[in-house]
C-alpha cells in the first residue's frame, strides 16, 4: 500500500502534522537529524522482522494464540517450588498494581508522586513489622540480588573476606551470589546436619577474619533453621555479621530472624501477593536495624517520612540519597536502577489485607499442609524424608528405596497431569505445597506415587529370582 504509515501508538505519524513539524524546525526530512551518524554505520535497509500486526485485533489473536499453547498450573496439579511459589493473590492486590497511576509511573518526585512514595514507604513499614526490623529497602530485583548484596554489605562493613555458608542454598541463587561477590568474598560451605546448620562445625571455623555467617531459612529443601540465636551469638562474638536469607511468608507464625540476632535479613517477596508469572515476578528485600553502619551500605533507594510546611502533615523523600550510584556513580554502593517497585507495592497491599491474623493463619496452614504432605509421602514404602527438620512449604524425599528416580517420577506423573516436584540429584525430589494445595491434592499425589512404587516393585519382582527378597530388607 502506498498510503502513509500512521500508527495509533505514534500520533505524529499523521502526515500533515509531521510536515508541519519538520517545517517548524527547518528540516527537509528526518534524515537531517541523523547527520552525526556516519553513513557507513547506517543500516540502509529495513530490519528483517516478522510482518507486523498493526490492527489490534490481529495482534491480540496472534499473541493469545501463542499463549494458548501454555498449560498453566491451574490446569495441572503442581507441587513445584524452588524459588517461585503458587500462593493465592488477593484480587485487591492486582487491582491496585493494575491502576494506570502506579503501573505507568516511573521516577517522579515526592510531590506529584506522593502516592507512590507513600505506598512504597508503607511497604517498607509493613515488611518492617513482619520482620521486626526498622529499615527495609525499596525492592531490588529479587532474593538472589538481595542476598548477594546483603553479603557484600557484610564484607564492606567488616572489611573481611570469609563467609561461612551454613545452609543448603538453591543452586541458581548460589550461582548468582558466587559470581556477584567472588571478587570481594570467599564462600566456605559447612554442610548442614538434618537439614539445618551444623552449629558446632560453624563455631569451629569462625574467626576474626569471618565477615558473615550466611543462613538460608527455609533452606533449599524447605528446612526451617531453629538455632539462629546460637549462630548469631557466635558470629557476634568474633565481630561477624549474621546474614539470613529467607522467605517472609512464614513470619506470621515463626519468630523473625531479627528477634534471634540476625543483622541483615534478605530474601524474595514473590510469596507476598505475586503470581508465578513463569518465574518472572520477583522482588528482593534487604532489612537491617536502624544503624547507620548498615544503612549507609545499602545500595537501594530507601524512602523516608518527613515533616512538611503544614503542621501535622507528612511527606516522603529519599533517605541518604548520597549512598546511591545515582548520586555518585562508582563511588556509590554497588548500583541502583529500575528494579521491582510495583511488586513492592503489591506486597504491601497483600500484607495490609492479610493483617496479623491472616499471616498467622497462612503460616499455620503452610506448616500443617507441609507436615501432612511429609507424612503422606513418607509413609509410602521405599520413600523417605531426607531430614527431620521442621519444614515450611517444601521438603525433599529420597525415592531410591522404591527403585525409582526423581526424574522418572516426574515423567510418569506428568502424564497424569501432575507436576510432582523438582528433582535434585538422581533420587531426591523436592516437593512443594502451599495454601492452594488442598488435602485432596496431596492425597492425589500420594496415591499416584504409591501407584508408581507398586508398579516398580512389581516390575522388580518380576525380574528378580522367583523367590522374592523379603519386603523388610528393601525398606
Amino acid at each position, binding site marked *: 500500500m502506498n498510503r502513509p504509515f500512521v500508527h495509533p501508538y505514534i500520533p*505524529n505519524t499523521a502526515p500533515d502534522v509531521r510536515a508541519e513539524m519538520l517545517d517548524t524546525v527547518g528540516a527537509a526530512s528526518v534524515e537531517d537529524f541523523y547527520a552525526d*551518524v556516519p553513513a557507513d554505520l547506517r543500516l540502509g535497509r529495513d530490519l528483517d522482522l516478522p510482518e507486523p500486526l498493526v490492527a489490534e485485533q490481529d495482534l491480540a489473536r496472534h499473541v493469545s494464540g501463542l499463549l494458548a499453547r501454555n498449560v498453566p498450573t491451574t490446569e495441572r496439579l503442581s507441587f513445584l517450588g524452588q524459588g517461585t511459589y503458587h500462593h493465592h493473590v488477593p484480587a485487591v492486590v492486582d487491582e491496585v498494581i493494575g491502576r494506570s497511576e502506579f*503501573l505507568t509511573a516511573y521516577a*517522579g518526585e515526592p510531590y506529584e508522586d506522593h502516592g507512590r512514595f507513600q505506598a512504597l514507604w508503607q511497604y517498607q513499614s509493613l*515488611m518492617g513489622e513482619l520482620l521486626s*526490623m526498622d529499615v527495609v529497602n525499596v525492592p531490588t530485583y529479587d532474593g538472589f540480588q538481595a542476598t548477594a548484596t546483603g553479603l557484600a554489605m557484610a564484607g564492606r562493613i567488616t572489611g573481611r573476606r570469609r563467609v561461612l555458608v551454613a545452609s543448603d542454598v538453591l543452586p541458581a541463587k548460589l550461582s548468582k551470589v558466587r559470581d556477584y561477590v567472588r571478587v570481594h568474598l570467599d564462600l566456605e560451605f559447612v554442610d548442614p546436619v538434618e537439614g539445618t546448620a551444623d552449629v558446632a562445625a560453624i563455631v569451629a571455623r569462625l574467626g576474626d577474619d569471618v565477615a558473615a555467617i550466611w543462613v538460608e531459612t527455609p533452606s533449599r529443601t524447605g528446612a526451617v533453621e531453629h538455632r539462629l540465636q546460637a549462630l548469631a551469638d557466635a558470629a557476634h562474638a568474633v565481630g561477624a555479621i549474621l546474614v539470613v536469607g529467607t522467605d517472609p511468608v512464614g513470619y506470621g507464625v515463626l519468630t523473625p530472624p531479627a528477634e534471634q540476632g540476625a543483622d541483615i535479613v534478605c530474601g524474595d517477596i514473590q510469596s507476598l501477593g505475586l503470581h508465578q508469572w*513463569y518465574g518472572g515476578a520477583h522482588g528482593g528485600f534487604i532489612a537491617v536495624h536502624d544503624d547507620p553502619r548498615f544503612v549507609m551500605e545499602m545500595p537501594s533507594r530507601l524512602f523516608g517520612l518527613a515533616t512538611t510546611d503544614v503542621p501535622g502533615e507528612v511527606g516522603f523523600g529519599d533517605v541518604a540519597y548520597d549512598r546511591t550510584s545515582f548520586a555518585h556513580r562508582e563511588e556509590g554502593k554497588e548500583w541502583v536502577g529500575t528494579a521491582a517497585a510495583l511488586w513492592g507495592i503489591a506486597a504491601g497491599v497483600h500484607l495490609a489485607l492479610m493483617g496479623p491474623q491472616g499471616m498467622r493463619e497462612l503460616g499455620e496452614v503452610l506448616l500443617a499442609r507441609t507436615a501432612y504432605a511429609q507424612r503422606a509421602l513418607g509413609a509410602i514404602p521405599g520413600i523417605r524424608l531426607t531430614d527431620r527438620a521442621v519444614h515450611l512449604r517444601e521438603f525433599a524425599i529420597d525415592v531410591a528405596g522404591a527403585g525409582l528416580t526423581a526424574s522418572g517420577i516426574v515423567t510418569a506423573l506428568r502424564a497424569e497431569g501432575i507436576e510432582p516436584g523438582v528433582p535434585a540429584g538422581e533420587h531426591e525430589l523436592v516437593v512443594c505445597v502451599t495454601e492452594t494445595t488442598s488435602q485432596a491434592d496431596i492425597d492425589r499425589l500420594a496415591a499416584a506415587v504409591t501407584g508408581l512404587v507398586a508398579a516398580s516393585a512389581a516390575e522388580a519382582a518380576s525380574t528378580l529370582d522367583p523367590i522374592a527378597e523379603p519386603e523388610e530388607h528393601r525398606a
Partner: protein
Amino acid sequence: WDEPVIFELSTPGERGVLVTSIEPGVRDAVGDVVAALPDGLARQAAPALPEMGQMRVLKHYLRLSQENLGADFNVDVGQGTCTMKYAPKVNERLIATPKLSAMHPLQDPADAQGALEIIWRTERMLAEISGMDEVSLHTQGGSAAIWANIAMIRAYHEANGDGEQRREVITTIFSHPSNAAAAKAAGYDVITLHPDADGYPDLAALKRALSPRTAAIMVTNPEDTGIYNPAIREWVDAAHAVGALASYDQANANGILGITRARDAGFDVCHFNVHKTFGTPHGSGGPGTGANAVSAALAPFLPGPRVVREGDRYEVREAGPQSIGAIGPFHGVVPNIVRAYAWMMALGAEGLRAVAETAVLNNNYLMKRILEIPGASAPYATGRRRIEQVRYSWQELFEETGITSEEIGIRASDFGMHYWTSHHPYVVPQPFTLEPTESYSKAELDEYADVLAEIAREARETPEVVRTAPHHQTVHHTHHDDLDDPERWAVTWRAYRRKYPQAVGA
C-alpha cells in the same frame, strides 16, 4: 485526598482477606503444628500489621493511586533518559491470563511452548535490531543487564587468561551511572572520560586512557545529552586495538531503531532497557527487563538458563560451563517480555523506524520550542540536531532570578507535569533533560513547552510562587533535610514511632 498512613486506619478485629482453613483431616493427622515448633521458633508477639476490612484497604490504595501521576496521565517528557512512552493497554490485557500468570517456571517445557516461543522470538528480533548473534532476556532491568555485560566481560578475560591484567573499565560521564557502578562492583577500577568542548565524546582522551590494563569501554550512544558520537566506530576500534572489549549501553536506543546497530559499529556486547525502548510500563520503578546481546565470541558467557529451539519445539537449556550463570531466577521478567514482544509485533520494521524517526522529530521540535524560552539553553553541540533527548540548562534563568531547576520542576507539578531534577553529577548546571519519545502529539509537546515558558515567566515576575511550590499537590513543601540525618530519618513506621513518639501519639 488527605489519606493517612495505613497504620492509622487499623481497627482491631477487622479482616481484609481470609485464608483457607486447615482441613479436619489434615489437622487430625498433624496436630497443632505451632505448638510443636522447637523452642523459640514460634513467634510470640504478632506482627503489628494493620487490621482493616477489605474495602478500606482498597480505598486507601486507590486514593494513593490518585495521588500519583502515572505516565498515562500527563505529558511525560520531563523524565529524560527514561524513555517514557505509551505502554499499550492491549498488552496488559494479553498478559492478564492464567496461561501466563499461573505458569511455573519449572513446568514441563511441553506445557510452556507459548511462553518459550515468545521468549525465543523476542530474542531473535532483538538480535536483528542490534545486529548481534545471540540475545538473552534473563536480566531484570537495565542496570542488571549492565552488570551482566561486565560479568561476561570479566569471565571472557578470565577465560583468556587476562583476568589479572585487565583491571580497568573506561566510561563517559554522560553514560548511565550504573556502567561505572557495576564495573566497580565487579572489582574494576573505573576511568570516567569527559566530553570535548562541544559535548562530543573525546576520542583523544579515550586513546590516552586505553592500555593493556583496560578490560572494556562501557559507553552510551547517543549519550544522555542526545548527542550521537560520530566517531563511535573509532572508539570501538581503539578499544579492540588494546585487547579490550566494547560494551554498548543502549538505554538511549529509541532514536536509532532501524537506523544503526550496535554490531555494525563493532561492539562485542550491548544491552537494551527493554522496559524503556520496547514499551513496557515502568511500574513505579520496576520491574524492568534487560536484554543482553552479544557477538558469537561472547555467546558462551551469556547468563542462563537459555531458551533454545529444537525443530519446532522450544526447550530450556541450563547455562553452559562458560556462562556467568544465573543473574536472577529463571527466564527474567516474563510479563515484560511478552509485552515487549507484542509491542514489537504491533510495529514491525516500518513501525520501529517510525518510532525512531518520530522520537527524533519530536525531540528536535521540542528543542526549538524550549530554546525560544528566555533563560533556557542547550549546552554543547550548538546549532546541531540532537537524537532523542536534550539535556538543557536553566543556568541563565538561575543567574537572573535565583530560581533553580529543582524549583522549576516542583512548580511544574502544579501544572500536572512530571519533570525530573536528578541529573547527578551536575556537569551541566541547573540541568533538565527532556525526552519526548514518539508517544506525544505536537499539541502535547506544545502544551509542555508552554508550561515551562509560563514558569520561566513566573520566575522573573513572581518568583515567590515558584519558590514556595508545590501549591496544588496533596502534600506541601517537605523537609528533606530530615532524611539525611540518622537521628531523624524514619524508613518504617516502627522507626517513626520510636523516633517521633509525640507525633504518633497525637
